[in-house]
């Protein structure tokens, strides 16, 4: 009955109530936005022409590997670009951590202060896209005959779309559209102390397998009568150290064709294959054969001190690996002599190797002024020119993302000069680069969706947790793993993932209780305001009638 009364009232004073409710909704929206929301923007439309007379300032958030040569290359690229486009100023902010960039972007989306151009991972873009038109889709820009890749109006010799390694470009596709250009690519390598493997009585196989790595690692835990490790005569030996345990889990699952996730955001990682992997890792962590970067430190530090035999790290960390590494964090008197072999990550199926493709991509954030976005796009493309690609790739075990750069005589000469010095042509670095180039067809990436970055974190966290737990004498059994599955699901909100939405605001899940209470209260207040005003109106009307 009361419902009908309210309904009748709404009909009788429709406009006023509608206005009140709209105001309430608006107020609620504003309050929520103020707390943690984000604003939408108009979709970017390519201007007819680039306005070279207009002064434009763009911000570029870049990532380097704490490597001054990389910093210099960015600086030179900016200076060279600004010479070509003197009306554009590029301000660079340097990061050494993708996680920090991601966090800062998320923070700045809510205040509409994102950078113009940003180094990123596609996983992170999926989260950036929870706001409307936050990230610029690039398909039309790429294809634009004037300013697109290889376009007629470009003031530099950039690559065409076809000259970008197709696997790498596809990694930047979220849903139906491309949201980034690849900048550099790397994979993981297993840097092996070949000297110690042979000292333990083993011969390195053509393809490194998990069984081989575990077996040698266990053998390396043997100690002599004085309590020193027999293989190195030291008190410290962690035979197998993995830098990025998220990659470790992802690759172990992929190599076994086990489920991980779907494009639509379906989480599949909590399966029996994962359970088996975690139990196996726990066993080797318990014996002291395995540890991780987060728990122990950089694999390179242990490898170079003769305290590790299998060090898995990015090919982009190759300059830190080996006795002649140009970069090292350990004291010279701690370094030992050994021969370094470079392998792809260990495999389950030697006939069907699989390894992760990783490395920075570049995305563009939408702004109100299309000329600013176009300038951002011109700079983004410039990062794919040969000079930038080759110079940056040579700083580490990266590979250029364009065939155009790879085919140059300059780059081929660089590869051919492997081992001629321990600096630019450091053999371990170029071996790692070659390994990746030869295995490009064996690389893969995981599905990208809103939440895929969290899933990746969870994948690594499970390995970290079991490794820490067994070191602390906990038992890793089915009950432990059941509990672990639940805790990482909650911690990383894996029950709230969803497909990347291509520029439309996606469902962020149910509102928190406080937000619901706030909105409810606001609606009630505005309804009462409406009633109050309505009551006054009726009274006045009655008075007038009397």
């Amino acid at each position, binding site marked *: 009955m009361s419902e009908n009364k309210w309904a009748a009232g709404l009909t009788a004073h429709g406009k006023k109530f509608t206005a009140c409710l709209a105001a309430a909704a608006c107020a609620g929206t504003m309050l929520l936005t103020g707390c943690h929301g984000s604003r939408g923007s108009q979709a970017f439309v390519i201007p007819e022409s680039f306005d070279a007379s207009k002064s434009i300032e763009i911000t570029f958030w870049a990532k380097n590997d704490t490597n001054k040569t990389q910093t210099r290359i960015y600086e030179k690229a900016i200076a060279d670009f600004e010479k070509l486009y003197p009306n554009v100023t590029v301000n660079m902010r340097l990061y050494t951590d993708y996680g920090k960039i991601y966090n800062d972007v998320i923070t700045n989306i809510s205040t509409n202060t994102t950078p113009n151009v940003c180094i990123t991972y596609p996983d992170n873009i999926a989260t950036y896209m929870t706001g409307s038109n936050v990230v610029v889709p690039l398909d039309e820009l790429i294809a634009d005959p004037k300013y697109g890749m290889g376009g007629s109006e470009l003031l530099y010799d950039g690559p065409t779309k076809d000259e970008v390694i197709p696997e790498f470009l596809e990694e930047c596709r979220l849903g139906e559209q491309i949201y980034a250009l690849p900048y550099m690519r790397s994979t993981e390598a297993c840097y092996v102390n070949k000297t110690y493997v042979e000292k333990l009585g083993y011969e390195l196989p053509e393809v490194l397998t998990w069984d081989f790595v575990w077996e040698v690692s266990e053998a390396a835990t043997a100690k002599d009568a004085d309590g020193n490790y027999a293989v190195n005569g030291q008190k410290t030996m962690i035979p197998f150290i993995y830098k990025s345990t998220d990659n470790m889990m992802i690759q172990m699952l992929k190599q076994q064709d086990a489920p991980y996730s779907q494009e639509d955001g379906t989480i599949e990682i909590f399966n029996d294959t994962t359970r088996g992997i975690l139990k196996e890792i726990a066993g080797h962590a318990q014996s002291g054969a395995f540890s991780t970067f987060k728990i122990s430190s950089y694999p390179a530090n242990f490898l170079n001190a003769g305290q590790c035999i299998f060090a898995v790290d990015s090919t982009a960390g190759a300059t830190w690996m080996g006795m002649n590494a140009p970069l090292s964090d350990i004291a010279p008197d701690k370094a030992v002599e050994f021969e370094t072999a470079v392998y792809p990550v260990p495999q389950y199926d030697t006939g069907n190797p699989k390894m992760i493709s990783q490395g920075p991509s570049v995305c563009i954030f939408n702004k109100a002024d299309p000329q600013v976005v176009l300038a951002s796009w011109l700079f983004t493309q410039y990062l794919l020119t040969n000079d930038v690609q080759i110079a940056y790739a040579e700083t580490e075990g990266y590979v250029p993302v364009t065939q155009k750069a790879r085919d140059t005589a300059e780059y081929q000469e660089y590869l051919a000069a492997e081992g001629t010095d321990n600096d630019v042509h450091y053999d371990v670095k170029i071996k790692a680069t070659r390994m990746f180039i030869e295995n490009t067809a064996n690389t893969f990436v995981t599905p990208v969706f809103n939440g895929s970055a969290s899933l990746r974190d969870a994948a690594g966290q499970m390995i970290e947790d079991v490794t820490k737990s067994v070191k602390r004498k906990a038992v890793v059994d089915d009950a432990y793993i059941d509990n672990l599955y639940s805790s990482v699901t909650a911690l990383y909100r894996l029950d709230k993932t969803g497909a990347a939405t291509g520029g439309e605001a996606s469902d962020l899940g149910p509102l928190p209780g406080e937000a619901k209470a706030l909105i409810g*209260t606001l609606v009630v207040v505005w309804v009462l305001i409406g009633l109050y005003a309505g009551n006054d109106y009726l009274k006045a009307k009655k008075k007038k009638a009397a």
Partner: protein
Amino acid sequence: MKKIFATLLAATCAISMIGCGGGSSSGTTSTAAEDPSAKSEGVMTYAEYDAAALDTGVTIEAYVQGKQSWWDNKATLYTQDGDGAYFIYEMAMSEDEYKKLTDGTKIKVQGFKSEWSGEIEIVDATYEIEEGNYIAEAKDVTDKLGTDELVKFQNQKVAFKGMTVEQADDSGAAFLYNWDGSGQEGDDLYFNVSLDGKTYSFTVESYLTGADTEVYKAVKELKVGDKVDLEGFLYWYEGPNPHITSVKAA
């Protein structure tokens, strides 16, 4: 009706503030002349902590001497009692609680003793704020530089006196942004100082003391050849890596 309206508006404002604000919890007060080495029941002495094996559970009481960072609901702290220091790494803590911690605040911490590149720290920890306050004096360890004894002061507030600033790289710069000069304003500062012909690398850790702090600005003003007195926390990374908090002319 007006009263109801006013009440509801007030309630709305209050709820809005709760929605955007944080929680609250108890604070701490200073006590005069307390013994910073005294421990509550069930809490380890520093000697017991020092003797504890890695990867074992530890419970300590200590006083905050420096707050390095808060990130993703995790706090990293330099703490100390009357006998030694404890580096608390990424302890679960809300930002509001972190803001309440001041130098001297006493906390009880339960976690696991761990080692990362030579740095002994407490990880996966929980905490309680306790009554008490103590700020340690910087211990002069100048004569321990370059000796095996220095590690005994790991994580403590220490002082190095009469050091000479050396060039940080071949360019002759007195400091670098990041260890190799790859950084920019706001990043860690690295500088070299020498004593008796031996050179040591010191750091201004940007999370602990960022670009707006006195020490960050002071290091940027250093000139090769300057004589300086330094204070900081004796952090460890593959050897001593002091996080400097004060630079003064010697």
